[in-house]
């Protein structure tokens, strides 16, 4: 019984993290039709900068609770700098190219950022577990979990609701939905597509950095941490249906639960199970679980 409970709780925690990553990815794809491989590097960048800022904050002898503000600051900083930089400086020159070409461009960005991270932070791992330990533990039955995990779940719910609310209930969101539906016509109707693209990419980048920032205290921040994250978040958004927020949530839950169950009951199939689910979903529903029918263009 407590075994099952542990699987579910671990699954939820893991899903929350996956969801934060997947939201940014699916948002960027939905609006801009770019499957962003660099998402993993931006995640790593967020984690590194958080580790540095938190380390600097604590070394200065400030109030340890301020380290949470540092995590947020790091995520915002990465998002607000890297987002516009990549969109304005690079992606903007490439719109209109094939989806796969855009995929390759983000792959190139990924390669570049991997080395940038190594050049700036070196190859040694960084540890900042203070924000993780600070809040203590809570008990569910016989199981004890760090309270920090609740923060993680909270951040996931908050980012998810905020994104959904922005999309469905604000003026900008509705314009964005129009752009998703038909970019050219929305442009003709006076929507500033250029600016919406910039905003979308920046928000997506910030979400990746938030994913990195909330993860930084829970593990050793080390080189190459973005590499595995990329394919995992791909699996999530592809399962859910590219460009669908609800799909990202469902995909994150599925992947999170499957992985958590695999880790508990049959560790040997951990990775295998995640990608098997991805392949099975793609086989059964080639465009993911939540996907709208598309008209065939001749």
């Amino acid at each position, binding site marked *: 019984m407590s075994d099952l409970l542990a699987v579910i709780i671990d699954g939820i925690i893991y899903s929350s993290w996956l969801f934060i990553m997947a939201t940014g990815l699916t948002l960027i794809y939905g609006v801009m039709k770019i499957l962003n491989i660099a998402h993993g590097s931006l995640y790593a960048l967020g984690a590194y900068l958080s580790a540095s800022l938190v380390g600097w904050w604590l070394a200065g002898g400030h109030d340890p609770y301020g380290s949470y503000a540092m995590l947020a600051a790091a995520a915002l900083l990465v998002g607000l700098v890297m987002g516009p930089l990549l969109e304005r400086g690079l992606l903007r020159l490439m719109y209109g190219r094939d989806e*796969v070409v855009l995929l390759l461009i983000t*792959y*190139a960005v990924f390669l570049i950022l991997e080395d940038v991270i190594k050049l700036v932070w070196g190859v040694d791992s960084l540890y900042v577990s203070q924000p993780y330990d600070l809040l203590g533990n809570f008990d569910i039955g016989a199981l004890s979990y760090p309270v920090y995990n609740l923060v993680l779940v909270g951040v996931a719910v908050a980012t998810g609701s905020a994104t959904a609310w922005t999309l469905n209930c604000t003026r900008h969101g509705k314009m964005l939905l129009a752009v998703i539906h038909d970019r050219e016509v929305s442009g003709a109707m006076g929507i500033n597509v250029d600016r919406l693209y910039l905003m979308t990419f920046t928000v997506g980048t910030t979400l990746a950095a938030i994913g990195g920032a909330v993860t930084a205290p829970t593990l050793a921040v080390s080189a190459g941490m973005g590499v595995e994250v990329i394919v995992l978040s*791909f699996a999530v958004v*592809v399962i859910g249906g590219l460009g669908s927020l609800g799909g990202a949530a469902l995909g994150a839950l599925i992947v999170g639960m499957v992985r958590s169950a695999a880790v508990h009951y049959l560790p040997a199939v951990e*990775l295998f199970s995640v990608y098997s689910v991805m392949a099975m979903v*793609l086989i059964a529903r080639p465009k993911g679980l939540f996907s709208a029918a598309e008209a*065939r263009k*001749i």
Partner: protein
Amino acid sequence: MTDHTLRVLLGVAALLLAGLPFMPQWLAFLITLALARGLVVLGLALLMRTGLVSFGQGLYYCLGAYAAALLDHAAGIHDAALMLLAALLIPVVVALVLGLLLASYRGIFFAMLSLAFSMIVFGLLIKTSSLGSSDGFNVATRSIFGITIADGYNGRVFMAATAILSVIAAGALHRYLNSHLGRLSAAIRDNELRVEYLGASVRNVVHLNYVIAAALGGIGGGLTALAVGHIDPDMAYWTTSGEFVFVAVLSGTGSVLAPFFGSVIFEAIRTLANQYAPNIWQMTLGITMLAIIMFLPAGLWALFRRKARAA
């Protein structure tokens, strides 16, 4: 314009084989690796001509390598020819089955499903302790076609084998691309609905191309396994597949010679970068890739084309 492809192919191969006895060991090894990986890229280039990018070609590279290595590891067969045969057959069988599914996928979904398949194999291999988990295992080769290879000559024999196989593969693919069926590939990339209206089966062509690409990937993997003498699951990881895509983009799909040319350049840069600037190796790759996509969308091969036209 007369077609010099086959002549160039034979010429370069003859040059390589003639230079073999005078080549230092390291150079022979590098050329072997470059050509073996060039074979994988050749398969990817064929898919790209059809308008498909596989982000999971590492699957066949890895399967080929493991098929060859398992003959030695599990069955005690040390003959290079048999090992390469296994490296060809296993991927072809797997691709025939997976191709049934993949033949109806396009664009990003083709890339993602092929990625998923390769990651499944990676996930399996990395947890299989009898195959060395993430460390992989060593491969020993003692003979080729039953003839024992003398000590110290392994590298040269493999290079000769790789060069000969590359010529055969590239020559055959060149003929295929100029055949009726082969010319359909580019047509599918341009507009597959029209191809269907003309009465050809898009599915079958895509399936066939997928199997050919897998066969080339398998051979490339098998040759790499023999030459390196060691294999590990990273061969199926997505970054390996990404590298192949990179080289395919770098070289372009204009000619069957392009993948080998691109692959040799790639290995040369990699070796130099490892030696002199290991910290910015990936960055160099990334910047090169961006530059190629921006300024030479048809790949390095376009440079030759332009010259040929100007002359």
